[in-house]
C-alpha cells in the first residue's frame, strides 16, 4: 500500500507541473497567433484573405506572388499556418494542395475555404456537403479536355479505354455522357483489386484506341504507372493524362492549367464570395495547356503536333460542339 501511494505521488507531480507549463505555453501561443491577425483585421474594411501553403516553399511563394498580382490589394493576402486558421474568423482561406486543405478543415470547419491545386475526386465531397463555403480551382485538365487531347494526337481514334475501381467509377460518368457529342465513345473497365489491374488493362487496351487516365490514385500511382505505361506501349496504345508529372513518367500528353490561370480564377472566386457571400462551384480554369512527351511519340511513330496546336485543336472542338470551352 505504501509503495502504491509513493508510486502515485511520483506520477502526479510531473503531470501537475506539466499542465502548469502547458497553460503558460498555450497562453503565449494564443497571444502570438492572435496578435498579427488582430493587426490585419484592422488593416482595411474588407475581410482579409488567408493563404495556407503546401509546405513546398518555392511553390507557395510562386502562388502567393501570383495571387497578390490578381487581388485588388496585395495586402489583403496573409500567409498563415494551419494552427492560426483556428482564429481566422470571417476571412476566406485559400489553401494550396490537398494536405493544406485537410489541415484547415480539421482546424476550422466554419471557415470559407478555396482549395487550389486539388483534384475533383478529392474536393467534390467537401464542396457538395458545404456548397458555397467550400470551393476550389482544379489544377489539371478536365477529363473531356484530356480525351480531346488524345483525339487531337490520334485523330483516327474513336474509342477510349478507361479503368477505375468500383469506388472511383463515378469520376468518369460525366465524361462518358459527354463523349458522343465529339464522336467518341468510352468504356469503363473495373478493377476490383490490384492483381486485376494488368489483366483488366489488357482487355481495356483491346477495346480502346488510347487509354485515358484520370487522377485516380487507386489506379494511377507511382507504383503502378510504369507497368501501365509499358503494357500500353507494348500494345502500341498511348496513354493520356492524368497530369504533367505522368507525362514526364511516360504518358504521351496531358492537359494542365498554368499557375497564373489558377490565380486569376481564384481571385474571381474570392471576389464572388465578397459580393455574394458564396463561392461558385469548384471548376477548372478555362485556360489550359498541353504537355507532351515527344520521345514517346517518336518511339511509337506517332506524328505529334506542337503543344499549342494540340491545345488549339481541343479548344476548337469544344467550341464547335458548344462544350465548356465556349463558356
Amino acid at each position: 500500500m505504501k509503495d502504491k501511494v509513493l508510486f502515485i505521488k511520483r506520477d502526479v507531480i510531473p503531470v501537475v507541473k506539466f499542465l502548469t507549463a502547458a497553460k503558460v505555453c498555450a497562453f503565449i501561443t494564443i497571444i502570438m497567433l492572435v496578435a498579427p491577425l488582430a493587426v490585419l483585421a484592422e488593416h482595411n474594411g474588407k475581410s482579409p484573405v488567408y493563404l495556407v501553403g503546401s509546405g513546398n516553399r518555392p511553390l507557395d511563394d510562386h502562388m502567393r506572388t501570383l495571387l497578390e498580382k490578381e487581388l485588388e490589394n496585395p495586402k489583403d493576402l496573409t500567409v498563415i499556418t494551419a494552427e492560426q486558421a483556428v482564429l481566422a474568423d470571417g476571412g476566406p482561406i485559400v489553401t494550396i494542395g490537398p494536405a493544406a486543405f485537410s489541415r484547415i478543415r480539421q482546424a476550422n470547419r466554419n471557415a470559407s475555404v478555396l482549395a487550389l491545386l486539388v483534384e475533383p475526386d478529392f474536393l467534390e465531397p467537401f464542396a457538395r456537403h458545404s456548397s458555397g463555403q467550400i470551393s476550389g480551382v482544379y489544377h489539371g485538365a478536365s477529363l473531356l479536355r484530356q480525351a480531346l487531347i488524345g483525339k487531337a494526337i490520334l485523330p483516327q481514334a474513336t474509342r477510349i479505354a478507361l479503368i477505375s475501381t468500383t469506388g472511383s467509377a463515378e469520376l468518369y460518368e460525366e465524361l462518358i455522357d459527354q463523349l458522343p457529342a465529339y464522336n467518341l465513345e468510352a468504356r469503363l473497365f473495373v478493377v476490383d483489386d490490384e492483381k486485376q489491374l494488368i489483366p483488366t488493362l489488357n482487355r481495356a487496351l483491346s477495346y480502346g484506341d488510347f487509354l485515358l487516365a484520370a487522377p485516380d490514385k487507386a489506379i494511377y500511382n507511382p507504383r503502378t504507372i510504369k507497368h501501365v505505361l509499358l503494357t500500353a506501349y507494348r500494345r502500341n496504345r498511348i496513354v493520356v493524362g492524368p497530369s504533367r508529372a505522368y507525362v514526364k513518367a511516360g504518358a504521351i500528353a496531358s492537359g494542365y492549367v498554368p499557375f497564373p490561370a489558377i490565380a486569376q480564377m481564384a481571385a474571381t472566386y474570392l471576389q464572388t464570395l465578397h459580393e455574394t457571400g458564396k463561392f461558385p462551384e469548384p471548376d477548372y480554369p478555362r485556360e489550359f495547356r498541353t504537355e507532351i512527351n515527344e520521345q514517346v511519340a517518336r518511339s511509337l511513330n506517332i506524328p505529334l503536333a506542337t503543344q499549342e496546336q494540340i491545345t488549339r485543336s481541343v479548344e476548337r472542338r469544344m467550341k464547335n460542339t458548344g462544350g465548356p470551352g465556349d463558356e
Partner: protein
Amino acid sequence: MPVTNFEKSTPPVLVCYCTNITAKALLASLLLGPMVASAQSASGAAEPLGFYGFSHEIPEVLTTTRLRQPKTRVPGTTTVIEGEMIRDLGIMSLVEVFRLVPGMVVAEVGSNTPVTTYHGTVHYEQRRMQVLVDGRTAHRATLSDMDWQTMPVPLELIERIEVSRGPNSAAYGINAFLGTINIITRNPADTAGAEMRVVRGSRNYIRTFASVGDTSENYDWRLAYEKRKFGGFDYQLDGDERVPFHNGHDINTFNYDSRLKVNSGFNADIRLGVVDGINEEDRDKNGELGATGNPDIDVRDYYLQTQLNFTTSQNHFFHFQMSFENYDRRQSWPVSIPESAVDCLANGVLVFHQPNLPLCFQPGGTPLIADINADSEDSRLEFELQDTLLFSDDLKLVTGLGFRKDTYRSETFFNGRGNNYQSRIFGNLEYTPVTWLTLNGGGNWERTTTTDEGYFSPRVAANFTLSNNHALRFVYSTAVRTPDGFEQNPDYGFTLRNVRPGQYAAYEGYRVESTAIWQHPNLVTLGRHLEEERIVSREISYFGLFPMSTGQISLEVRVFKDKLRDMISGVIQFDDWSIDNNVDLDQQGVEIEAAIEYPGTTIRASYGYLDQDGWYSGPQIYNDDGSINNHEKQYNVELLGRMSVRHSGSLALIQDLPFGLKGSTAYYWADKFRNSRFERIDFRLAKRIFQPRYSAELALTVQHYVNEEPDMSRANNIEDQNQIFLEAGIRF
C-alpha cells in the same frame, strides 16, 4: 530519482510534437509530389527520373540494328505487323502473316510444308532469312531450313513481328542474308489472367489455345498451350486422277514464359517450351527407296532460354542470353525394294541411274521388305552478350559477342554426329550530328567451322529526316550465307532394319548409301567444298507519316538493287546431289507499304515488284557424251527463281461496325509461281463483347481462293474454293 523521472518525461512530449509536424510536412510533400515536380520543371530545374529510366523497355523497331529506334532513324526498311492486326484479319497460321510483308511470298511445298521468303530464290529448304523468336534463333540447327508448322508461337501470343527487309548480317550474322524475321511474343505481364480460344474450320482445321498467367511486383509468368490440327490439301493428282494426299499435321505446343524482377537494375527472362505432335508426310512426296507407308514425322522439340537483363543506369544496359534448342524428329517408314534392285546394290550398279533402270527394276521376284528412317536430332547452344550505351539521344552504341554450337545426330544424314561452331562480334553506332541527319554504321565479324573462314558484314546508312515525320534513307550493306552442316558435310544413307523375308537376312543393318544409287552420276557434286554466298545490297527508301485532321497516312517505299553472287543451287536428294556455288543473281525492284487510319477504319496496302536476272556461274556441266549440259545450267538458275515472283502484295481493310461488330477483308496475291498465280480474299466478321470483368469474341472467317488452279505444286488442291472458320474466345 523522481526529479530525474520528471525531466525525462517532458522531452518526449516535445519530440512527439516535433515529429508530428515533421510527419505532416512529409505527408504534404508526398501528396504534393507531382505538383512539386511540375513547379520544379516550370522553374527550369532538372527533370525527375521518369520515362527516361525505362525508355529502353518501350518497343520501337529493334530488329534492324538491335537498337530501339523510331522508323525515321532505322538504317533500312522494316515492316512491323502488330499481333492485333494478325488476329483482326483472321490469319489462321503463322506463316501466312508474311503475305502482308512487301516482297515476301508464302507457298507450300512437298506434303504441305509451308515456306516463306523475302525476294524469293528456292522453294525447298528456305534458309536465307534469319528467323528469331524473342531473340532466339528459330531455324533448325543443321538442316537449317525453317519449320513453320511446328513453331512454338501461338498466334494469340504474338505481340508483333518485325521484318527487316534487306541483308542484316551486320546485326544478326551470316544467316540474315535476305532479311530478318523477329517474332516478339507478348510480355507475360501483358497476358496476366486467363484466356481461351477455339477455332474450327474447313479441312479439319482445329486450333485450341489456352493461357493462364499472373503478374506481381517481382514475378510475371504465363503458361500457354496450343493445339494445331489441320488436314492439309484435299487431294493430289496422279495423272489426271485425284488421289488422297496425306499432308496434315497435329501439333501441340506448351510454353512457359516468365520475367523475374530481382531489383530495378536486374531482371531475368526465363522461357521453356515443348513441341510434340505429328507432321504428316505423303509417301509419294517424301518416301525414299520405294516407300510403302507414309513417312510421318514425329516431332519432339524443346527449348530453354534465359536472358539476364542488367540496367546499370538509364543510359547503359546489357543482357546476357543463353538458349538451348533441341529438334528431335523421328521419321520412319516401310520400304519394298525389288529383288532386281537388291541385286544391283549387291553388284555395285547405280540403282537409279537412267541406263540401269531396266536392269534394276524388273518385275517379279521377292522384294526386300524393311523399315528405314530419316531420324535426326539437332541441338543448338547459343550464348550472346549485348551491350547498349546511350551517350545521348543523338549518339547510341550497341555492341555484342555471340557464340553458337550446333550439334547434329543422324544415322541417315550424317552417319553419326558432328558439331559446327560459330563465334562473332557485332556492333552498330547511331549518330545524329544534326537534327536532319542520322548516320548508322555497323558490322558483324563471324567465324564458322562449316567453311573454316571468317567473314565481315558491314552496313552503313544515312537517314535524312524532316520534322520527325519523314525520312529518306540511303543504305549500303553486305552479307554472307555459309552452307549449313548438311550442305557441306553430308553422309547420306538409309539403314535397313527389320529386313524380311529371311533370304535377305544379310541386309539387316545394311546402309544404302546415296553413292550407290545416283540418278545422274555426272551431275553429282558430293564432296565439293562449298563457299559462302555473298550479297551486296543498295537501298534508297522513304518513310513518311502524314497526319490529317481525322486520321493519318503512313507510307514506306523501298527501292533496291542487290547483287547476289556464288549462290548455292542444285538438288539435295538421296538419289541426286548437285548443289554448288554456281548461280549469280541480280535483283532490283521497288516495294511499297502504306496504311491509312481513319476513325474506326484501317486500310493497309503492300506491294512488291521484283526483277530478277540470273545466270550460271559455276563449273562447266557436261552430258554423258561430253557436250555442255546447258539444260542443267538453266535448271540450276531456275531453281533460284521458284519463289521469286515478279508481283506480290496485299490489301487489307479493318472496319469497326455497329453493334460491337468488327469486320475485315484482305486480298493477297503473288504473280507468279512458275505458271500459277496465287490470289485469295479473306473476310472476317467478329462480334466483340467487352464487359467490365471479361471480354469475349465470336468470329466467322471465310477464305475465298480466287483461282481454281493450285499454286506452286499441282498437288496442292482444295475441293472448295471457300474455306470457312468459326472461332470463339474469352479472356478474364
